[in-house]
């Protein structure tokens, strides 16, 4: 016993060491290297004022209020930086077209102006990490639209403006049918006329519209996708300077302290998942109780705390490094292997699918056999009812019955009794009922065939086995079909393999990889199911013969 404990402790220590090597890599505890001094920061201090390029035409991030003063979410952030530096704040209105140039020529110290952080822009300016906000693409929809998930938009007409970078990607990954318009105004009017289910646009720009009385009741309930992180930008030559370090520490503190979330609430913005996730991440402690996101000796943030979009293989260690190296060299993004989040989701999806298959196969068999037994019991009304049920069951699409039960009946139960129906249970029931009906029919047909030779034959539990033996081809085929049909569950948001794979694919853009993995996984799953069913068939029926 003590030997075993000793072994466990030793193994544990080795595991810890291994994890340390894989995850922490070269970072050893020690003083963080000091950054080089900053000309710009010296200038700000000498001037006694921080000049920030801000937006004044983008409510509620930066806009002019009724009295003509500029304010907004980003203005509050700029104010906080000036306060921390102990200088006054001077705001300069910039536009999307001129902001990078103003930074370049030095007429502003920094930009806090809805600037998206991209690899392209990182070649021109220095982007402060961590990012302070993130925008995404969503749908601006009329009040009566009842769509709450992106998967419900497949094949639907969606209005869009020409030239938006996300149009093509959204059409490809989300299978939208885009109706192009020349201006945002035209597209929004088309939504008003119900010529499309909604307008595809940047979620932060939509927030401004939703405040206007003209669009009262309009909404944007879909979670923003294709997130673009926003960063504070400073001049390119300030990279690695004290100024960059200071601003990064301030943004990190906004996330840790919850200041960013608090300002978001003040300006009536819908709760952004980016801010919530970042807040949780930056508050996390490591095994020794120290904050997980602390600067390493090199002055960089640890790679787990950085936006994975900007990481390359040299920034990371372990499995992720291998995965990124593979991606950089082959273009194939195997995120479901190297990325812990994707990997966990994928395995959970696989587990859900296997569980669904097991439950649907046994459910179908149970209902099918039960139906046949009850029908053969020759109780007048029950036999008739079973017959009707099996005919209706076979001739109505299970997917449609799922919608009928889940949304039709489910919403009635919800409003009347406050009882919510589980999509998982509905899927298992509908598929089992559909397949059970086929099995009942096949068994009753086999019983009829028996009666031709033996007119007094009646199906009972006792002679079920020999009857199944004569109709096992049909029964096995039906059971294989129901295990294939479990993917239908993705239509009612059960997180099984198919829906997980499409989510990972739309988030990472690795469509080819995910589709091939998905097809291969299902081929293997079905292949295994077929083998298991044939084996059971042989074992169960073979012994009786």
């Amino acid at each position, binding site marked *: 016993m003590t030997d075993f404990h000793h072994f466990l402790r030793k193994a544990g220590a080795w595991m810890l060491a291994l994890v340390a090597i894989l995850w922490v890599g070269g970072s050893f505890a020690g003083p963080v290297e000091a950054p080089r001094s900053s000309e710009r920061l010296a200038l700000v201090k000498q001037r006694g004022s921080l000049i920030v390029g801000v937006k004044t035409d983008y409510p509620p991030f930066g806009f002019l209020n009724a009295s003509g003063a500029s304010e907004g979410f980003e203005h509050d952030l700029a104010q906080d930086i000036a306060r921390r530096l102990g200088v006054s704040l001077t705001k300069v209105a910039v536009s999307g077209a001129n902001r990078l140039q103003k930074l370049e020529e030095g007429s502003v110290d920094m930009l806090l102006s809805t600037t998206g952080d991209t690899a392209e822009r990182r070649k021109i300016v220095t982007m402060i990490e961590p990012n302070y906000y993130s925008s995404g693409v969503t749908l601006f929809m009329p*009040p*009566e*639209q*009842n*769509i709450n998930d992106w*998967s*419900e*938009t*497949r*094949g*639907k007409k969606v209005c869009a403006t020409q030239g938006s970078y996300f149009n093509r990607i959204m059409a*490809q990954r989300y*299978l939208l*049918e885009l109706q192009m318009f020349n201006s945002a105004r035209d597209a929004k009017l088309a939504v008003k006329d*119900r010529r499309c*289910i909604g307008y595809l646009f940047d979620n932060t720009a939509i927030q401004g519209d939703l405040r206007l009385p003209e669009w009262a009741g309009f909404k944007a309930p879909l979670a923003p996708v294709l997130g673009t992180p926003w960063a504070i930008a400073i001049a390119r030559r300030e990279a690695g300077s004290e100024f960059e370090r200071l601003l990064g520490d301030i943004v990190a503190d906004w996330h840790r302290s919850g200041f960013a979330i608090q300002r978001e609430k003040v300006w009536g913005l819908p709760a952004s998942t980016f801010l919530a996730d970042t807040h949780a991440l930056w508050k996390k402690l490591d095994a020794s109780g120290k904050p997980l996101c602390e600067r390493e000796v090199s002055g960089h943030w640890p790679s787990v705390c950085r936006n994975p979009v900007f990481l390359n293989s040299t920034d990371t260690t372990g499995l992720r490094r291998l995965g990124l190296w593979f991606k950089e060299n082959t273009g194939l993004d195997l995120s479901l292997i190297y990325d812990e989040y994707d990997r966990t989701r994928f395995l959970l999806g696989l587990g859900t699918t296997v569980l669904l298959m097991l439950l649907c196969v046994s459910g179908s068999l149970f209902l099918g056999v039960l139906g046949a037994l009850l029908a053969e019991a020759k109780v007048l009304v029950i036999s008739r009812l079973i017959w009707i049920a099996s*005919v*209706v069951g*076979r*001739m*109505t*699409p*299970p*997917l*449609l*019955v799922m*919608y*009928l039960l889940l*949304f*039709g*009946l489910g*919403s*009635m139960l919800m409003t009347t009794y406050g009882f919510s129906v589980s999509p998982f249970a509905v899927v298992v029931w509908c598929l089992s009922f559909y397949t059970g009906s086929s099995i009942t029919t096949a068994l009753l047909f086999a019983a009829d065939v028996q009666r031709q030779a033996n007119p007094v034959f009646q199906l009972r539990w006792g002679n079920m086995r020999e009857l199944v033996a004569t109709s096992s081809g049909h029964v096995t085929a039906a059971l*294989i079909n129901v295990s*294939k*049909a479990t*993917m*239908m569950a*993705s*239509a009612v948001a059960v997180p099984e393999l*198919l829906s997980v794979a*499409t989510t990972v*694919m739309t988030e990472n853009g690795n*469509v*080819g990889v995910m*589709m091939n993995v*998905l*097809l291969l996984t*299902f*081929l293997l799953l*079905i*292949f295994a199911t*077929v083998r298991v069913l044939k084996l059971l068939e042989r074992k169960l029926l073979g012994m009786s013969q």
Partner: protein
Amino acid sequence: MNLPGLDVLRELITWTPFLLTGFSLNILIASLAMVIGTGLGWGLALLRLSSRPRRVKTSLLLTELTRNVPTIVFQFYLVFMLPSEFVLPGTSITLGFPGWLNASLALAMAVIGFTSDNLTTTLHDWRKGDHAAALLFLPNWTSYMLIIVIASSTASIIGVSELVSRCNTVINATGNTRLMFPVYLYACVCFFLFCYPLTRLMQWTRAQLAARLGPAPH
């Protein structure tokens, strides 16, 4: 109490042309899947009856593969992996590749497996001169088509504007959640009214053929 029921009925009548056009797409998808699948499955069945073992083995392997691919997944595969439009080689004509065609191709996979299995015995019977037994393929084939018509409802998951998808469109467009139950029920009735008479007809045909065959030898 009676009024809401009447309102719902009126709504359903208004949307009937829209919904039934959707249902015709279900039948189109299923029919095309049957045509493609039967053609290719026939080829596999002929190979299975070949005297060369290698051909038989290849056919069995391909049949096994078509049986194992879940059509819903294959549908997604085609939608995301095939271009939504392509240029005809040697010309500048761009052809669209609509979603319903992807659904047909995916469902055709299942039909290939079915045809390959069933036609093998049918062709065998036919060559033996047992034409009546071979004719049993027809009612079986029609019954399978009904399964494919039912399965065509899954095309709604990739956004094909067939009946199930149009039910969702109606519910979303009217914003009337009380319409949910009647609309889905209406669609169920559509499928049932199409499938039930055909099933009865096929049962009758099968009985007629069986009578002509005389008592089964086994």
